[in-house]
């Protein structure tokens, strides 16, 4: 299998010398193509910082991150933007859809900023909207959609440019359980049928149970890593719960 993402000994410090906070502490892992990886951890564990570093929204203090062989910690300015729009797809907890644009236009924006001609944009949107089952809401504005619909539109925008890696930050955080389930099943579909590589951050064990592998982070370090393997989602869920119990702290609250 080809390695898509390689995080190698990254560290991230906040604050001054007198009051130093280690948000990420010598953390390393790899993600292979076609994997559905979930990062779990309590709030303050450093999982969002990690995601921000991978998505180049934040910079690491030391260490390297390779995406498809490219060291993204060395990128600057517009190279970062180019990398972000061509290699990554983003799905955020609060959807990050532009309220002035329709669903169709929101999805199209992901491609139009890459200067892709309209004809191709239109064709790709047709395909993606079918995959995510949002064909009938393309003309709607964000305020006319439910949370689940918004998140599926955001997902469509994320995958339409066929990114190497899809980053999802608490994608179900603002959804009800039914919408969550529907969205996660779509993720599974994208992962299995389209071989999309997904890196998801969550503190919800149910959401995590849809992944192939879960990495638990505590105090900026990897606490434990478990694989789904051949077990069912239910069994995997129970395994996750076991680790969560072991982890203690406020992640328990997520149950």
């Amino acid at each position, binding site marked *: 299998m080809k390695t898509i993402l390689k995080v190698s000994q990254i560290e991230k410090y906040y604050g001054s010398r007198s009051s130093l906070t280690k948000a990420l502490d010598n953390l390393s892992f790899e993600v292979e193509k076609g994997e559905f990886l979930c990062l779990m951890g309590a709030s303050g564990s450093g999982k969002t910082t990690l995601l921000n570093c991978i*998505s180049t*929204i*934040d*910079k690491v203090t030391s260490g390297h991150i390779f995406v498809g062989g490219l060291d993204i910690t060395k990128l600057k*300015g*517009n190279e970062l*933007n*180019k*990398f*972000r*729009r*061509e290699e*990554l797809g*983003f799905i*955020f907890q609060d959807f*990050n*859809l*532009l*309220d*002035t*644009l329709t669903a169709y*236009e929101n999805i*199209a*924006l*992901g*491609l*139009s*900023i890459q*200067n892709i*001609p*309209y004809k191709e*944009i*239109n064709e790709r949107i047709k395909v993606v909207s079918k995959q995510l089952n949002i064909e009938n809401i393309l003309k709607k*504005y*964000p*305020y006319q959609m439910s949370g689940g619909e918004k998140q599926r539109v955001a997902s469509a*925008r994320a995958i339409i440019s066929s990114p190497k890696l899809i980053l999802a930050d608490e994608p179900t955080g603002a959804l009800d359980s039914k919408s969550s389930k529907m969205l996660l099943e779509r993720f599974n579909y994208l992962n299995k049928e389209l071989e999309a590589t997904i890196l998801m951050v969550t503190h919800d064990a149910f959401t995590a149970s849809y992944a192939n592998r879960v990495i638990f982070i505590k105090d900026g370090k990897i606490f434990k890593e478990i694989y789904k393997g051949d077990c069912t989602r239910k069994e995997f869920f129970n395994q996750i719960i076991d680790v969560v119990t072991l982890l203690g702290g406020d992640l328990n609250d997520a149950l």
Partner: protein
Amino acid sequence: MMLCKLSIKNIKKSFKDYAIYFFTLILGISIFYVFNALDSQTVMINVSSSTQDIIELMMTILSSVSVFVSFILGFLIIYASRFLMKRRSKEFGIYLTLGMSKRKISLILFFETLFIGILSLGVGLLLGVLISQVMSLVVANMFEANLTKFAFVFSTSACIKTIIYFSIMYLLVMIFNTYSVSKCKLIDLLNGAKTSEKVKLKNPYLCIFIFIISSIILGKAYHMVTAEFLTLQEVIDIIKPIIMGVVATFLIFWSLSGLILRIVQSLKKYYYKGLNSFTLRQFSSKINTTVFGTTIICLMLFVTICLLSACLTIKNSMNANIKELAPVDAMFETNMNMEKYYDKYRAYGYNDSQIKNSHYTAKEMFELFNFNITSYFKEYIEVNTYATEELTMNNTLGSRLDNIRTNFPFLAYDTMETIMKISDYNKVANFYGINEYSLNDDEYIIIADFKSMVNVRNIALENAEVINLFGHTLKPKYNECQAGFLEMSSNHINSGIILVPDNVIDKEYLYQNYLIGNYKTNDKNEIIKIENNINELDKNSKAKEYLLPSGTTKLAIKEATVGLSAMVTFIGLYLGVIFLISSAAILGLKELSESSDNKERFRMLRKIGTDEKMINKALFRQIAIFFVLPLILALIHSIFGIIFAVKILEVFGTDELLPSIITTAVILVFIYGGYFLITYYSSKNIIKERY
């Protein structure tokens, strides 16, 4: 003083974002001071008494304009503070949840307004005093005074006036703020930023329909003020196209806001290119709510452009006119044979003996008052004009009269025409250095330079209307009026003199006698002395019995013109600049307050990997559209507005139109463009991400 501290901190924090607001306040205050301090300029103090009168008039007008200006600035300040309040709703929400009373929040706002007021007044007055010094150069240049030594000018009265006016404005803002705080609800304050606006799309067919209708209305209004100009006789006739224009402007923006998006959306290749879709949506989501504001700004720009170019044209033309229309030092006229029209002159207020003693020429009359013309004048000529009830405008217009009367119902058709011997006129023309004419025995010429009258008279002349005078029948030599004048003045106001062969004239109908001459001296002070002497003659006891010749002099015309042109220029500049900065500031503030809302949107764009360059371009375009849209329509309005103004200002002459339009354009680009750039850079600063 916890509240005090909080206010100062708030001002410091928002200073950067609202630099444009402070900047406008300071500019407004300094302009207000400068124009109210005009009379204390040193040059203004050392002028002759006749100019002094005009300066007094100018100051009276300027101070009433100031009241109007203070209304505009007051509106701007309240409008701006409403923006600032809205922007800070969340902050107030937090204060309220922390248990701060509304009274205390009002107090914070009170302190803030107080500090901003003191700060802006201080800086504004300082700037105003500095600009005032520069202004003294402009004024000196205008009054052609030599500014031999520089004197620092400071006007206490203007300073106090500025402080009082602006204190009242700030007081109103305080009351307004307190009122809005007392009205607000906590839930709205906290959720204020979150409620995303609904995007309502208008029915495109309705938009097209409204657009067409409003374009037609606008076209009709344009037509009314230009092509149908001559039919505009009463105030209501002028108000009608104005109202039509205002309504059409509003409707055009209303329909455009719906149409532009539709049109561009249908150009799919363009719409889905880069951030075009985003920019357009930004634009249309806002214009829905700002159609009214855009209309106001468009109209203000229109008024500014017309005002500035009209005022500058008047000024330039006036100065050019003096050289041409006041070629010699002095001109006096005296009425002859006044008994002939006893009733008319009585009605004018002349007494019986004055009317009876009207057989003297101007020169003889002056000698009666012991004022010897020859001792003061190195050269002079004397000419006569004649008039008879036999020849009024009814007669000169001849067969075209009815036709003309329907188009111009308000001309005085029964006034007697002024008639001159061709030899007398040529004497004057020679003396003035203007065109002389010759006539055959059966011909006449009409001399006129007042454009509207020239147009009327030409209708008759084209038709070769013959006139009957003292038993002679004369036909026109030319089929149009010829240029020239008898009386010196500051403008082209000669509405018609009929030149006839010398032998036609009947001496019985002598009407007025003119004395035109040049002084022996060229020294300005001595000339002032002579003219003061002549003015003093009026106090002589003989003035009750004999009518002193009236007249005008080059110096008087010059001073009146300079005074008048200074007045017009200053009023134009004052209003124009205030209008311009107010409308530009409103646009800028609106954009800035939205930029902070937009920050979130631009952050999203950055997250999905949009280039900084693309984002800046989108922002630039977005702001440019808002600045340019009202300007475009204002410019179109102005084309017709200026055509209209040119027709009204025909008296002053409008040859100097182009330079004034260029000056106006420079002022517009400088101020409006400046505000645009400031807005753009401040917005860029607001949406900038700081990692």
